[in-house]
């Protein structure tokens, strides 16, 4: 077994709201290896987004530790780029190309022509070359998310953190974006930690799926996925996940998104 890229060990996360202290996750452990498409799946309230923010360095664990390449994560940094669900993650005063270049120059990775070339290379990868000089407010939701993904990938981070990046898109666009993401992964084999509440999305995107139970989030199971919702004996992976999360009931209230 090689060394894991990301090692999350017994992490308990808490955050304060105005009148209470909320435990988001309780002693969660998992390990992500190079080129994994690691999906964290769970219902609302399982702390999956909080967990991702903690990997991003925005929130310190109250117990346990998170190591990336052996180093403990203490603050946000350009080696872990976040892609958010919200469309306003793009800077509205910069064009598509400038948004991608901004990531490279702000983090002092590249500057000038080198930054521009790298930016265009990744904008072409997400098929937005003809919109390179458009401002974000003129783009559709799916295009904005593609820019955010290009911006994240252009940084060539150790790990890409995606927080339900397709949740605010319509069903057709979402399916297309999932295909595109898998295609990009085929090209570059980046490591991605992907948070979602949708079972079909987890099954399609992930090669490894971590199931979290809610209130507070605890590890329920860790499963492999081939991307083809099929366990070989006629059973479906999505059904198995559903049973694990909600108990063995009829799949009438599965999230179909």
């Amino acid at each position, binding site marked *: 077994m090689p060394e894991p890229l990301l090692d999350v060990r017994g992490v308990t996360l808490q955050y304060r709201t105005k009148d209470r202290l909320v435990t988001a996750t309780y002693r969660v452990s998992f390990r992500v290896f190079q080129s994994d498409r690691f999906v964290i799946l769970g219902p609302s309230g399982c702390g999956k987004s909080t967990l991702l923010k903690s990997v*991003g360095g925005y929130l310190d664990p109250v117990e346990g530790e998170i190591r990336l390449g052996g180093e403990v994560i203490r603050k*946000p940094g350009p080696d872990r780029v*976040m892609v*958010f669900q919200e469309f306003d993650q793009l800077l*509205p*005063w910069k064009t598509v190309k400038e948004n991608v270049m901004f990531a490279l120059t*702000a*983090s002092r990775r590249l500057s000038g022509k080198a930054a521009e070339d790298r930016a265009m290379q990744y904008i072409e990868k997400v098929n937005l070359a003809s919109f390179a000089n458009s401002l974000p407010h003129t783009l559709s939701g799916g295009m904005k998310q593609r820019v955010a993904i290009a911006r994240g990938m252009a940084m060539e981070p150790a790990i890409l953190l995606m927080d339900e990046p397709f949740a605010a898109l319509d069903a057709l666009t979402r399916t297309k974006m999932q295909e595109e993401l898998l295609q990009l992964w085929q090209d570059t084999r980046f490591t991605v930690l992907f948070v979602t509440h949708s079972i079909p999305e987890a099954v399609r995107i992930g090669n490894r799926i971590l199931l979290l139970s809610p209130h507070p989030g605890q590890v329920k199971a860790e499963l492999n996925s081939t991307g083809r919702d099929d366990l070989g004996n006629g059973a479906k992976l999505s059904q198995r996940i559903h049973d694990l999360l909600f108990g063995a009931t009829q799949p009438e209230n599965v999230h179909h998104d």
Partner: protein
Amino acid sequence: MTDQRAQAERPEFVSELQTDFGVVEKPLTTWEKVYNNPTVRKTALLAALAILWELYARKVDNPLLFPTFSATVAALWQGIASGVIPQRTFFSMKVLLQGYFAGLVLAGMLTALATATRIGTDLLETLSSMLNPLPAIALLPLAVLWFGLGNGSLIFVLIHAVLWAVALNTHAGFRSVSQTLRMVGRNYGLSGPRYVGLILIPAAFPQILTGLKIGWAFAWRTLIAAELVFGVSQGSGGLGWYIFENKNLLETANVFGGLFTVILIGLAVDNLIFRNIERKTVNKWGMQT
């Protein structure tokens, strides 16, 4: 059963699309285009008001109380041609810009403090809620005591007029920057002044611009009012002093000319400077329509 019946009652069909309809697109008539232009409509309104003024003033026929529009325009033209109005305007603008930019610098410092520390936020909120409702002109007697009759007093009241509006708006703008954008900024390793310059200021620019506009309007009004109050004892005065002086000489047309100049400068700054900044920034970025 019901399905079959419904199918019998509602047969399916596919229809051919027509191609010979009348108008798809038709250019508007010249009159419609002209009327759709807001500048044309507003100019027409102004012309109508000027005609009403002229007619009423001729009926009153008392140039001391109410000069005609044409006499006012003539007085304004003469004032400009003789160089008196440009010189007074220059004097007013010089003081105004000094006060305005001093106010901006102080507002920037106060906002920086408020953004960096919680006690700074409290300071800004307390001071601005106390001092913002206080008309700048009410501080003039105090300013005269402290700084004497001169530009020092004028600049003091101008700073008061600008500072709170700009600081409050900038601070509110910073606070309304979305959590996502803040996280994006920190993700790429931005902190301190780079974070403020590259994320907070552009993201809060709509509110900052509003603050700059309000501050400008306050400053301009305050200056004219302050000059009216004590411009009298100054050797050379600005536009407010020009208005006051001509009132004393009963040159009412010149008083109107001075007021006209004040209005024109206010309009010019708003429409030429601020409107253009708006168009090139927040409008273009889709942050404000």
